[in-house]
């Protein structure tokens, strides 16, 4: 029997016999053979230190207070978001790509310590609690690259009573991206509610008076 690498899989129809450590699972209706080496633990996955987003390297930093498991969860979530952006790159407009390209690093922090969102120098900071909160899907996380990236692009563009337009612009970019990478109806609706002209007073309040922490 030909040797398989750890974790390698094949579909039914192989003429090979199942070996020790092999097991079949059903994924999307297809029977898939998972091969695992015997007598050894699977290699410990490590959290990613960087990811490619639209062919650009984005470094990922983790708060050292996060456990290995928490870092791994965050890594998987960020990678899934990046995968959605990459997989749907051809659907994104040039403006959306430009916004996403503003992001060069991603930092996951423990709860309640650092500022969150677009935290300067092309960085996005999100807390563990935010990333693991109900409703934060891969598509939502991916769309945040566009939201925060658009804020970077908007720097200095809106002021005074027009600051709400910065938030509306960032949310518009987020919506455009989200629609292309898998937003569900609720995500779409929620963002539309927030960025609607009728909500301008709240957006203005959100953007003004010092810290929007």
């Amino acid at each position, binding site marked *: 029997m030909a040797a398989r690498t750890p974790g390698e899989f094949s579909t039914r129809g192989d003429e090979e016999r199942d070996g020790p450590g092999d097991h079949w699972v059903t994924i999307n209706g297809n029977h898939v053979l998972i091969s695992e080496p015997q007598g050894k633990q699977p290699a410990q996955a490590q959290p990613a230190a960087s990811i490619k987003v639209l062919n650009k390297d984005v470094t990922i930093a983790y708060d050292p207070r996060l456990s290995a498991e928490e870092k791994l969860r965050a890594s998987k979530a960020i990678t899934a978001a990046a995968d959605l952006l990459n997989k749907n790159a051809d659907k994104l407009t040039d403006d959306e790509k430009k916004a996403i390209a503003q992001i060069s690093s991603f930092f996951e922090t423990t709860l*309640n*310590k650092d*500022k*969150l*969102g*677009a*935290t*300067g120098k092309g960085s996005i900071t*999100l*807390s563990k*609690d*935010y990333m693991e*909160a*109900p*409703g*934060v*899907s891969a598509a*939502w996380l991916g769309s*945040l690259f566009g*939201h*925060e990236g658009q*804020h*970077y692009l*908007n*720097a200095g563009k809106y002021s005074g009573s027009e600051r709400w337009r*910065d*938030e509306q612009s*960032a*949310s518009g970019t*987020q919506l455009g991206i989200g629609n292309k990478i898998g937003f*569900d109806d*609720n*995500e779409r*609706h*929620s*963002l539309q*509610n*927030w960025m609607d002209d*009728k*909500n301008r*007073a*709240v*957006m203005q*309040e*959100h*953007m*003004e*008076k*010092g*810290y*929007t*922490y």
Partner: protein
Amino acid sequence: MLVLSRFFLRICPLALASIFLFQTAGKIAPSQISQQLKDSNSSRQLRMVICTDREKYSLGDFVRLTALLENTGDSRVYVDRRMFWTGLSGGLKLVISDEKGNFLPAELSSDAMMPPPPQGDTSILIPLESGFLYGTSVNLSVKIFFPKPGRYSLRVIYNSMLPKELVAPELRELPAVWFGAPLIPSKQVWIEVTK
């Protein structure tokens, strides 16, 4: 223990302030008006209470700021169980100003919007009985947030980001604070920063 006592002493009663941000336009059915009033009342019977762990800090310290929604009414109110310190789009906005009332300069927009709840999630609302509080806290680096010695005031504004139409159908008639309800601002709390 001393810190704990002072901590609780700093939770002071706050007056309720409501800001109506939306105007209704066009014809509205009586049932809609009744529902809007109910939603607005849910918001009105909540107040935002904030407190810090101390009154005086040095530049190397962290300010632990706690923000709580308190049900001051006579009946149960429901609130979104999620709260993020990411501005009004995340539920909680922190506003800091100096002794002269000047807001500290804003940094580049720092926000991350609250997503809608997962479809069919029936655990998204927290029931707040009369007199109960629900909230969260944040640690603020004095060096970053209050870089110069002096007195500063802190305020927190709560905004619900939970649209009624996006929660599980069985939750929609509950007296909850939904998206579009009046903002709920706290009173100011003062701290002093020394070298």
